């Protein structure tokens, strides 16, 4: 499903050069639930962003769902993100001016489907994270755990093949964290969705199929 070969990411500023990723080779088969751990600043988010086609590597090849990606600004890549990928962020990134339902609907706006169908799909996704009764709320009216469940609903509404989650439980207490993990695990088991998750929490990582560790931009386990 995802193949990375010799991926390198270097941030250059006028004065310093930071190697965020150094020769990463990674293969994530279809249906795997992979977790990535490592100390702060070791390059986890950078790696996830590269897998999610949000950022271009400085060097190396990337193959996602059988496609190699070259132009990150192209319409085609946008479309690919829209159809194949779903993102969950540590800080939720819900749009404050949109209702819960509108937030969930967002990825479907960039597909050519009717607004009625969009509504239905968004309501289904919300129901699957147990928030059907909050659809008219606004993000500011929700708890952290609820916000992240909305974010998950948004990530899954387009029925993506891969979900990329950057510390999805990082801002939540352990009860809420478990709840979120439960939803993701179920998604992986029942729908066969491939999931790549960055976490700081050993307990969460243990629940996944495989764990890799980064240290200073290189894979160490």
């Amino acid at each position, binding site marked *: 499903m995802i193949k990375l070969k010799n991926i390198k990411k270097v941030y250059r500023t006028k004065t310093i050069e930071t190697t965020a990723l150094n020769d990463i080779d990674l293969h994530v088969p279809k249906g795997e639930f992979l977790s990535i751990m490592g100390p702060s600043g070791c390059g986890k988010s950078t790696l996830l962003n590269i897998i999610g086609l949000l*950022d271009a590597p400085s060097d190396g090849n990337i193959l996602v769902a059988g496609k190699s990606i070259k132009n990150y600004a192209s319409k085609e890549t946008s479309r690919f993100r829209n159809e194949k990928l779903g993102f969950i962020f540590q800080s939720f990134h819900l749009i404050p001016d949109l209702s819960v339902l509108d937030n969930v609907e967002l990825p479907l706006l960039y597909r050519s489907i009717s607004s009625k169908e969009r509504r239905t799909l968004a309501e289904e996704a919300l129901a699957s994270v147990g928030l059907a009764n909050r659809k008219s709320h606004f993000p500011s009216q929700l708890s952290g755990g609820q916000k992240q469940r909305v974010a998950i609903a948004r990530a899954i509404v*387009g029925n993506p093949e891969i979900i990329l989650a950057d510390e999805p439980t990082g801002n939540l207490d352990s009860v809420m964290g478990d709840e979120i993990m439960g939803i993701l695990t179920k998604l992986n088991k029942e729908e066969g969705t491939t999931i790549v998750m960055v976490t700081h929490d050993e307990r969460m990582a243990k629940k996944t199929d495989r764990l890799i560790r980064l240290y200073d931009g290189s894979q160490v386990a």
Partner: protein
Amino acid sequence: MISNYIKLAWRILGRKKFFTFISLFGISFTLGILMVILSFLQSELGTDKPLTYKNDFVYLNTLSLKTDFFDTIVSIDTTFLNDEMVLDSSFEIKGTGSMNWNSELNNGIAEEYLSDLESAEEVSIFIPSSEHDVYVNGVKQTFSALYGDPSYWNIIDHQMLEGRVFDQKEMDAVAKVLVVSDKSAENYFGTKEGVLGKEMFIDGTNYKVIGMYAHTGKIMPYVSPDIVIPYTNANLDNQDSFYHGFFNVLYKKKKGVSADKLKEEIVYAATRIPMDHPSKPEGYEDIVFRPNTYDEDYAQAIYYEREASKSYSIMKWIIISLIAFFVILPTLNLINLNVSRIMDRSSEIGVRKAFGAHRGNIISQFIIENIVQTILGGLIGFGLALALINMINKGGYLMNARLELSPKFFMYSFLVTILFGILSGLLPAYKMSKLQIVNALKENKL
């Protein structure tokens, strides 16, 4: 999709009340002023009735008697030193000059030499405006009369409300008839109803009303006179000379020929006028005509230059700078405001892009948002414009001009509003659409 954007735009306007207030204030003020300018241009220089054929007009209001003279100026500039001449730079200038005696035309000249031109479809000869004091119930009113001919009605396309206009037979018979504007009818009779057949006492004569047309207030007096009387009724013997008199000539050119062609014919017609009439003032050898298009004549009436085309380009620049001042500055300001307003939302843009929005989606979203805002401002501006127009019309601040609210004015105002929305939204939207996803998401504001 569009309805989603509109909904979002609406909410964002509501959330950022201060921003919204500031930008709506700017937009509505700008658009309001712009609409007043538009209404003025459309009323005065548009082609609504009675100026339907305005773009075919060529207008001649002056006959110049001209004389050329030579001047010799001797300049003595000799330098002496100790009574010896050291430098002699005396020289002579042979200068030429010309003198013009400008006045309106004698109707005889107009009838004889200017009425039958190849490129003219219609020619009207008239005295554009003579003001007459009229006493109605002991109150003095001033009526601006046009002494015209039947062709006048074929060129100035007045909307007839009742009755008819006079014909050549009535002209020749010096019939005491007139056609009145509805406004003047009301001023004179106290009502617009049933005025046909009644008499108006103008300049010592009783005239019978045979028709009534809709009043339109225009700065050019001959376009919206109060009353129109056959010019044979005017006291033509009082004209200055065989050459000079009271009259102007208005042409409607034939379809397909250029105004320049007709102008050339008019200029050429001057050469056919005999220069040996005893009433010719001493010393003048030539006649010069300077015919103008409607726009040129209009510009010249507002800002006189001998060459009307110069007046016209000056007027054009004044209008362009007015528009620039009232539009470009506020647009730049709005763009600036928009950029900072959108920058606030960079993480939203990051999210949208992560979920599949491409640059076009982002651009159209922000432009639609901006158009929503502009339309709102446009509506307020429109209210403002209506109030201003009403005030201007009531107070008569632009001479006789009445600013009209024609369908074209509504259409142009709407177009200008949308254009303003697109222009002021394009740059910010374009800038935002270029944002890198990762950087946009780092702005952890959501």
